[in-house]
């Protein structure tokens, strides 16, 4: 609550030093990979020169460009659907009582806790069983399942901060409950919906272990493409692609920050 606590102690200084050290540990890998992407020949650090060659090649590489747009396509669909589903689920969980609420909430959140490799295998098996196999549909359903916890969390947080009597006031004035929801409650949580959708997109965009089960070589999202490429070649091209990916993520993080404040995500 208050800005300065009015006393300094050796413990606080030690904490600060350790904090700076840890920040260095976290930043170092990113610095290394970004620096490597400007390296003329190999992925090494410190770089032996400076070139933008690999970025040119990255933008010219058909497979990466195709994977990039496929990733965006899947991400957009997954984000839209999972934000919609999450909105319904959040309303039910926060506002209405029903049996097994705890279990349902845990189930919807469980993709955060079960190994994605296992989820991928399971969805792959289920998809084969119902005959959709490795397809855009299966891939998208898989992405929706694993991205759902994120908009669910942001929207639930928004709803919990929204006074239920706002909607009740509209109902008491004669409005139909469904219209009251769209006129009154939805505008209060729309930032949570938008931010949650954006987070869904990011998670989908980043996902690799799930996609690997549900995609084919002609049909691979970016992280899968990066990974397969790495199995054959190990040149700064991949550092350039990674740097672009990181940049893209940072832009998205700023978008989330502007929209809902990162706190909705970090809390």
């Amino acid at each position, binding site marked *: 609550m208050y800005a300065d606590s009015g006393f300094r102690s050796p413990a606080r200084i030690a904490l600060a030093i350790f904090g700076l050290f840890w920040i260095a540990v976290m930043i170092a890998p990113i610095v290394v990979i970004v620096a490597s992407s400007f390296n003329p020949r190999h992925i090494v650090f410190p770089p032996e020169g400076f070139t933008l060659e690999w970025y040119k090649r990255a933008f010219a590489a058909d497979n990466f460009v195709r994977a990039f747009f496929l990733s965006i396509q899947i991400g957009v669909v997954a984000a839209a659907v999972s934000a919609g589903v999450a909105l319904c689920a959040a309303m039910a969980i926060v506002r209405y009582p029903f049996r097994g609420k705890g279990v349902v909430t845990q189930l919807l959140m469980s993709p955060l806790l079960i190994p994605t490799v296992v989820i991928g295998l399971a969805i792959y098996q289920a998809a084969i069983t119902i005959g959709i196999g490795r397809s855009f549909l299966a891939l998208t359903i898989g992405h929706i399942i694993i991205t759902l916890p994120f908009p669910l969390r942001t929207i639930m947080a928004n709803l919990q901060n929204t*006074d239920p*009597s*706002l909607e*009740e*006031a*509209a*109902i*008491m*004035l*004669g*409005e*139909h*409950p469904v219209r009251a929801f769209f006129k*009154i409650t939805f*505008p*209060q949580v729309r930032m949570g919906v938008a931010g949650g959708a954006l987070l869904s997109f990011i998670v989908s965009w980043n996902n690799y272990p799930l996609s690997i089960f549900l995609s084919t070589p002609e049909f691979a999202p970016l992280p899968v493409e990066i990974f397969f490429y790495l199995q054959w070649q190990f040149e700064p091209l991949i550092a350039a692609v990674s740097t672009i990916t990181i940049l893209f993520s940072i832009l998205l993080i700023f978008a989330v920050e502007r929209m809902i404040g990162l706190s909705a995500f970090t809390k």
Partner: protein
Amino acid sequence: MSDSFVSVRNLEKRYGAVRVLKGVSLDIKRNQFVSLLGHSGCGKTTTLRIVLGFLKADSGSIHIDGQDMTHVSPRHRGIGMVFQSYALWPHMSVFENVAFGLRVRKVPEAEIATRVTSAIERLHLGGLAQRTPRELSGGQQQRVALARALVINPPLLLLDEPLSNLDRQLREDMRLELKHLQRSIAQTTIYVTHDQDEALSLSDRIVVMNLGQIEQQGSPHEIYFEPRTEFVARFIGKATFLDVTLDGAGADGAARLRTADGMEVHVSKLRRRDAVAHGGRALLAVRPEEVALASPGEAGAMRARIVEFLFLGNVYRYQLLLDNGSDVFLDSRTPLDGGEFAHVRFDGGCLVPKAAQ
């Protein structure tokens, strides 16, 4: 019952094993202002939500203006509601907030403009129509909530602790203004509050609730001066309490009482003497303003030791100790002059049955 505009019959509500409403019945006449008064958890909010229709009672019924509302959905009950949090919509202007109920009713745009403007004027919000709720002070938000509820001319107005979020000065001003508004529009109103001052000053009738039951209903004057239960006597105002038996009574209202430990107590004007049979035990409640200083020899004068006093601005409140160890509270406009002891007499008082322990 034919003259009751709102009739609530035998509401019962349980949450699991907890009986939160134990048969609450309530009748409200047309144009009456009725307060539901009680501590948090007494069942007043549950009653309110059942009347609104957001909560279903386990049994019991609600009629408004002769119509059975028990199973009618909240949107069709037509009740004007002011929430404790005001529940203003932050994404709409004051005008749009107030106009909402009229738009739902498909009132023509021109009529909406007139009616909203006049509601806004009546609540002294002129010039604020285009503001959003966040740009208003607490008191102004409160008025917008009132205007929004009143503009649809609801047959019944329901207010849930409308003043509890305001600070003290503003709360006192708004109390006066509410009373004034109430007098000018003569609106049938249920007012839910935990604040006895609000209930006393605004209501035609107060319903005191405790533990899911109605303890007492009556005019503010009755509730204050003639409490029927120990709970009501202790909840409303400050009082001196003595455990007594009725010893004798004169025709002029004077009475002689005896405390459990044998001390004789005179009360010049004893109210609710019939609350207890002659010789039966009861609680004597005396308001601080009914305790007066007496001269030592005077009839009914009791010696008391001055223990403590509080300066409250308009009054000094003294805590005194009778010889039998009972506390007596006395309000005086001037400080008592020095000395360890004072003599007091009871100019009034009220008998209340003792609550079962």
